[in-house]
């Protein structure tokens, strides 16, 4: 944000008076719609610095200036938060207005003549800046925001080179908000962005403005931690160094960092991130704008689990020896595996893909197993789910589509811990468009009102039998939606429950013309790719007892899937549950160290980029499988990333079109019609995520996440 801003701002000071006319951007949120004509928008024309611009009716003066390509300095204004208008930095001159106006809060009127380069504006900005700096400590050299600070940048561009304030500056007590957000409240300029974020987006009204006048403080008043799964976003929002990252404190300067655009794998949303690295180390992770997925937020786990990338890492191949695991060479490790594989036949060789498995390694593993004559491959977490019909395991409405829903039924899911960013969208749907949200399963606290219908299968059957009042709500809704959690799919009776849910979806019009509200919310990044690639056991393999098991990043496997006498090979990055069980460990790269494809819960393939090199002898997971195939006598026909991706596209063509969502076909419940109705258990539906901060091998290795867990932030 800072880079974009300051360069534009500097251009502004060089001041070309003629502005290029920029037509208003067409709104294309939610991407490809069938209609090509945008809805008619009433527009008005205003003049900004002499050039006319056309803007939608109801826009602010600030929006008019931005449309005209004039950058207006601001602190309190943020396009995703409500307008506060309290920093006064965005003052501009409007003809016939008696005094400078705060452009962020002033509605633009037809034929308004807005001036942003006049001496009045310059003086107003200088004055505001002087007031802001009066009580701001001049500690930029020891401030973590230094180099990416809005106040620093704007003071350079719009401020005076001297101040008249000679009295003592005020001091403000620092607040304890938990292990993630560090506070230096003396630096605060009271823009209230954090307060508005907490109230409007996170839905945790713990932050506020206390006191008045010079004694105003931002804080919690009573001693209280900031209990949100999205609390880290206030660090990005804070225009000064008042709220900074605690784990990142004093570790790097922003200009030393190399930024790599990547994708988060801590949940199934695939939030877009920037991985900031210094040398060979990941220093921090920040969000990257993607309107269709995460807007500009990420969860605390996505942001702060990076210290887990430096701990518990497997950096050399290992094999079980007399005294436990011992480091071996790649050749020795492969030989041991080859020996074990030679003793097993066909379906007795098994592969399990875990939460962090990427598409490239899944397809390589699948090809290898198939070449060895085995169809025994599975994804952990959903023993019974089929992948025949894509729409039965995707979030069909897309993430953006959640906001169009007007009646939402959550089944066996807790989006607040499974996908906090999605929960923020659900919250918006509930609070701003008035969607009714109901839950079947353990009671939830989602930061917005949720109607609790019941605990389990009985309620679901009642809904399906149309005897529950919420059936009517769904039936009457224009865009009803069902969100099925991974916790439900992972149950033994998951299939029978899904059958009921499909029947309910049919009856309530969850799937209709131009709308498919049947959504599955997965709980981890590797799930959908596994299903898309058909990483599921063949009929014959279901009966086979495995003798060799390949755990591909699999740490949360079901014990029953790995027989006690099986020879276990773990391919992965962290010494977690999978590695503990393994006979041979092959060191894989973590998600920041490889360029690989992940498919998010709505079926959108996205690629991570290698930000740093894999540690030690670790390698990209698919290259390990490729090398192993040679030793096992079943060489895979691809030698580089492009070739493996070509193979990926052969199996699942949509994986080539990254960042796009391939719409899936809905087969009108016939997906499940042929399955004999199983019995359902009375056990209550629960979320698959018990502790938001520790869900996979990386977050379990993270000290920061452990601190969050121990302070019981949830």
């Amino acid at each position, binding site marked *: 944000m800072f880079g974009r801003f300051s360069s534009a701002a500097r251009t502004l000071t060089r001041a070309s008076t003629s502005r290029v006319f920029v037509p208003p951007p067409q709104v294309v949120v939610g991407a490809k719609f069938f209609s090509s004509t945008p809805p008619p928008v009433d527009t008005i024309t205003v003049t900004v610095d002499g050039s006319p611009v056309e803007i939608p009716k109801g826009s602010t003066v600030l929006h008019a200036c931005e449309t005209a390509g004039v950058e207006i300095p601001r602190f309190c204004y943020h396009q995703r938060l409500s307008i506060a208008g309290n920093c006064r930095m965005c003052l501009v001159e409007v003809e016939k207005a008696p005094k400078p106006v705060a452009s962020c809060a002033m509605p633009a009127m037809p034929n308004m003549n807005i001036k942003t380069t006049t001496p009045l504006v310059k003086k107003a900005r200088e004055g505001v800046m002087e007031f802001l700096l009066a009580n701001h400590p001049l500690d930029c050299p020891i401030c973590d925001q230094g180099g990416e600070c809005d106040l620093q940048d704007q003071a350079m561009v719009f401020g005076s080179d001297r101040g008249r304030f*000679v*009295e003592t500056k005020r001091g403000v007590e620092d607040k304890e908000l938990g292990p993630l957000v560090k506070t230096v409240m003396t630096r605060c300029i009271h823009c209230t962005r954090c307060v508005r974020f907490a109230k409007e987006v996170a839905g945790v009204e713990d932050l506020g403005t*206390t006191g008045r006048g010079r004694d105003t403080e931002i804080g919690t008043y009573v001693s209280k931690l900031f209990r949100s799964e999205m609390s880290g976003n206030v660090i990005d929002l804070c225009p000064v160094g008042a709220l900074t990252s605690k784990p990142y404190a004093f570790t790097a300067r922003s200009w030393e960092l190399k930024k790599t655009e990547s994708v988060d794998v801590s949940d199934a949303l695939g939030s877009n991130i920037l991985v900031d690295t210094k040398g060979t180390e990941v220093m921090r992770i920040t969000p990257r704008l993607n309107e269709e997925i995460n807007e500009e937020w990420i969860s605390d786990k996505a942001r702060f689990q990076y210290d887990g990338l430096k701990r518990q890492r497997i950096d050399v191949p290992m094999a079980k020896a007399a005294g436990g695991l011992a480091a071996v060479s790649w050749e020795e490790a492969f030989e041991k595996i080859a020996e074990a594989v030679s003793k097993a036949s066909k379906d007795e060789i098994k592969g399990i893909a875990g939460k962090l498995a990427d598409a490239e390694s899944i397809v390589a593993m699948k090809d290898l197993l198939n070449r060895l004559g085995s169809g025994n491959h599975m994804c952990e977490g959903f023993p019974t789910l089929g992948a025949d019909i894509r729409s039965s395991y995707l979030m069909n409405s897309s993430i953006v589509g959640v906001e169009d829903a007007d009646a939402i039924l959550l089944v066996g899911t807790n989006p607040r811990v499974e996908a906090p960013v999605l929960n923020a969208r659900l919250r918006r749907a509930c609070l701003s468009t008035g969607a009714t949200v109901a839950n079947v399963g353990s009671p939830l606290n989602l930061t917005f009102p949720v109607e609790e219908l019941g605990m389990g299968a009985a309620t679901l059957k009642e809904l399906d039998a149309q005897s529950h009042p919420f059936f009517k709500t769904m039936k009457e809704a224009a865009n009803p939606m069902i969100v099925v959690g991974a916790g439900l799919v992972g149950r033994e009776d998951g299939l029978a429950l899904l059958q009921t849910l499909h029947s309910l979806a049919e009856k309530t019009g969850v799937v209709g013309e131009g709308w498919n509200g049947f959504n599955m919310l997965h709980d981890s990044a590797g799930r959908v790719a596994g299903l898309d690639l058909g990483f599921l056991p063949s009929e014959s393999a279901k009966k086979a007892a495995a003798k060799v098991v390949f755990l591909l990043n699999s740490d949360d496997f079901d014990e029953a899937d790995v027989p006690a006498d099986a020879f276990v090979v773990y391919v992965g990055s962290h010494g977690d549950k999978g590695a503990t069980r393994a006979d041979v460990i092959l060191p894989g790269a973590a998600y920041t160290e490889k360029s690989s494809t992940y498919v998010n819960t709505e079926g959108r393939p996205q690629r991570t980029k290698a930000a740093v090199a894999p540690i030690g002898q670790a390698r990209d997971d698919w290259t390990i499988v490729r090398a192993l195939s040679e030793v096992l006598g079943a060489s895979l026909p691809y030698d580089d990333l492009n070739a493996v991706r070509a193979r990926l596209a052969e199996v699942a063509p949509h994986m080539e079109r990254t960042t796009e969502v391939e719409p899936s076909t809905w087969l009108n419940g016939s997906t499940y019609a042929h399955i004999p109705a199983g019995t359902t258990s009375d056990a209550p539906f629960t979320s698959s995520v018990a502790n938001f901060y520790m869900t996979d091998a990386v977050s379990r290795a993270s000290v920061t996440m452990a601190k969050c867990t121990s302070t019981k932030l949830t």
Partner: protein
Amino acid sequence: MAIRRSMFHCAQLIRKSALASSSVPQTASTALKVQSAAVPIFQQRRWYADILNQHRDTPTNNSALAFEFTEKNMPKVNEIISHYPSNYKQSAVIPLLDLAQQQGNGHLTVQAMNKVAEMLEIAPMRVYEVATFYTMFNRTPVGKYHVMVCGTTPCMIRGSREIEAALAAHWGIKKGQTTPDGMFTLGEMECMGCCVNAPQITIADYTKGADGYTYNYYEDLTPESAIKIVDQLKKGETPKVGSQIRETCEPVGGLTTLLEPPPGPYCRDLSQA
């Protein structure tokens, strides 16, 4: 350095002339004079609020405690809430906090704020914001009588500082403190809007709970009459409310102008209009 010296010189001059023209009694201005002589004007110390805007738990004031409005006050609570539409319940926050403060003998505790938040279905933080913004909410305990001296310009010119100094000396406490017997807290307030009868003090009486709560102005004071009023209160007597020397705000020495009926032209006879 030259600039500093000349500024200092100016400051000295200003101060001298101010003292020369000052009509304040010598005793009361001594403290002021000593302080300003020691600190040059351009480095004068800033005054900070004596009340924190951050809560500190005490045994009687913390979120773990429960607060309930008394049965006697509940009709008042319901009455207050009934004044506002049910979807704008939060509008009742200030009157409810005021009532809670009266019930709490002038002390608005954090548990009372939590209770108000719960009743109005808003986040506690939103109540804390209101309670810390308004200085009439006492987040630290006060005495049975909260005596607030007006500190704004008209009262100050008419001698409010002397009244404050006299009260402080009478009780042996400083501004913001409470007398050892818990009877009086000396505070300051900004303009109370009766400048015509300056100087004045306001006394909030918390001795009789929310029912007998009074919030009275005592106007046209001198240090002596201010002390007389608080002493009367201490004895359980009821001092005269309002101006101490006249009926309302008429001229003290009787009317000096407009003594005879005003000359014409008069208003036309409206009945003929």
